[in-house]
């Protein structure tokens, strides 16, 4: 008899996941002639948190940035294979990269608020999209800041510089900024690694709340964090050519308590990496 796996939230969520929001098919990314990741097939389920873990340099960031074509910005970077967003290949000719980046937002390792007021930070994206009406912008800003659990802290100082906030608040501002674009997926590359433990917990809380409305893909070095906040986990490693490949993918609780691959086990138990 196999009891139901576990009663924690993430597993429950994993057990009921059905809709595929994104998917990579045979995805390889090259920097010039160096293949950073090879033939990755990875599903991203809707309204779930997917954690990507793996040793340094295995291509986690590369994979993540392939999901909203941020790699386009790197000279010499080249993509093979497909990345489907709602079934459509975002690398297909004729795809609008601006629109893709609107739909797949991104939050970075170090909080990077723009050097402008809190309000302008959040309104940056909507303004790009041509929204000029003050009332509409006001609404978007408030809604996004609320969603990022920051509204109470900043409602009285919307005009203040975004860089005057604390580290954790800055990161939430960046999340609010991403949310303001109404993305469908939010990519996060080690979003808490520059934060102190307390701020980290706040962001983790926030991520749990965000998945109600968004699909989240997060790269993290912190195994416990991945185990805490994600529903699914993908473990990447490097082959002899230092190309990253997908070793294991599965519901987080499975991967962390009973991984199928020896390599995964060694990595998550800290025996290699």
């Amino acid at each position: 008899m196999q009891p139901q796996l576990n009663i924690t939230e993430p597993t429950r969520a994993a057990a009921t996941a059905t809709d595929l929001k994104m998917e990579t098919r045979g995805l390889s990314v090259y920097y010039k002639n160096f293949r950073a990741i090879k033939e990755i097939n990875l599903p991203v389920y809707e309204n779930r948190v997917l954690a990507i873990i793996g040793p340094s340099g295995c291509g986690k960031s590369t994979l993540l940035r392939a999901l909203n074509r941020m790699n386009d910005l790197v000279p010499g970077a080249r993509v093979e294979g497909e990345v489907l967003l709602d079934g459509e290949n975002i690398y297909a000719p004729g795809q609008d990269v601006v629109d893709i980046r609107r739909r797949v937002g991104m939050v970075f390792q170090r909080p990077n608020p723009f050097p402008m007021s809190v309000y302008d930070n959040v309104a940056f994206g909507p303004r790009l999209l041509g929204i000029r009406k003050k009332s509409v912008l006001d609404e978007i800003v408030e809604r996004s800041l609320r969603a990022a659990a920051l509204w109470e802290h900043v409602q009285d100082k919307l005009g203040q510089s975004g860089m005057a906030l604390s580290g954790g608040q800055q990161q939430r501002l960046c999340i609010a900024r991403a949310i303001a674009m109404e993305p469908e997926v939010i990519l996060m590359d080690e979003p808490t690694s520059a934060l102190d433990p307390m701020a980290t917990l706040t962001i983790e809380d926030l991520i749990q709340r965000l998945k109600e409305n968004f699909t989240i893909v997060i790269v993290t070095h912190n195994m416990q964090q991945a185990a805490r906040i994600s529903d699914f986990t993908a473990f990447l490693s490097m082959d002899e050519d230092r190309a990253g490949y997908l070793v294991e993918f599965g519901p987080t609780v499975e991967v962390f308590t009973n991984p199928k691959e020896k390599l995964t086990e060694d990595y998550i138990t800290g025996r290699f990496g």
Partner: protein
Amino acid sequence: MPRTVLETELKNLKSEVLELGQRVGEAMLNSIEALKHRDVEAARKIMEDDKKINEARFEIERATLIVIATQQPLAHDLRLLASILDIAGELERMGDYAKGIAKINILMGDKPLLKPLIDLPRMAEIATDMLRQSLVAFNNDDAETARQIPQRDEEVDALYNQIYRELITFMIQDPKTIDQANYLLWAAHNVERMADRVTNICERVIFTATGEIVELA
């Protein structure tokens, strides 16, 4: 105050424990009820249901371990989680006692009872009530109450001794009753053990609340 994830997990786990306790208490009362009415069908059902209790306990255990390993709880949180692990184990054992009584019911075949059961149901009621109280104390993190509960174990012990003497008397008077009397003795013993286990739960509650390790027995 952050840590809402941990808080939520703890709340969930606590309510899972309460639910398990609820179920175990019911199993115990039902098994005695079934014995009282020699209802073998009901007994089978109880034995069947014990699997669910075991599963629930496993679930709690795994979830708790994952919370410990990932949420890095310390101090009160850690003590609470340790207690949850332990209490879930105790509850499962209590479930086993209920199952044991159901099994006795089945083993006793279709023979009628030597006499109507009165003290045994009374005992089970007290033990179950102690369990309920201990879980309330657990839920409220209430060391004071937890210290009181085990005192009621005396009532249970008194009833047990009474039953014991009565059944031995039966056996001596009529060797044909030895079989059944022995079975009933088992059943009483099981109920008595259950009350003992409640004491363990109370110890855990005190440990959680205060960090003190006391022996209440």
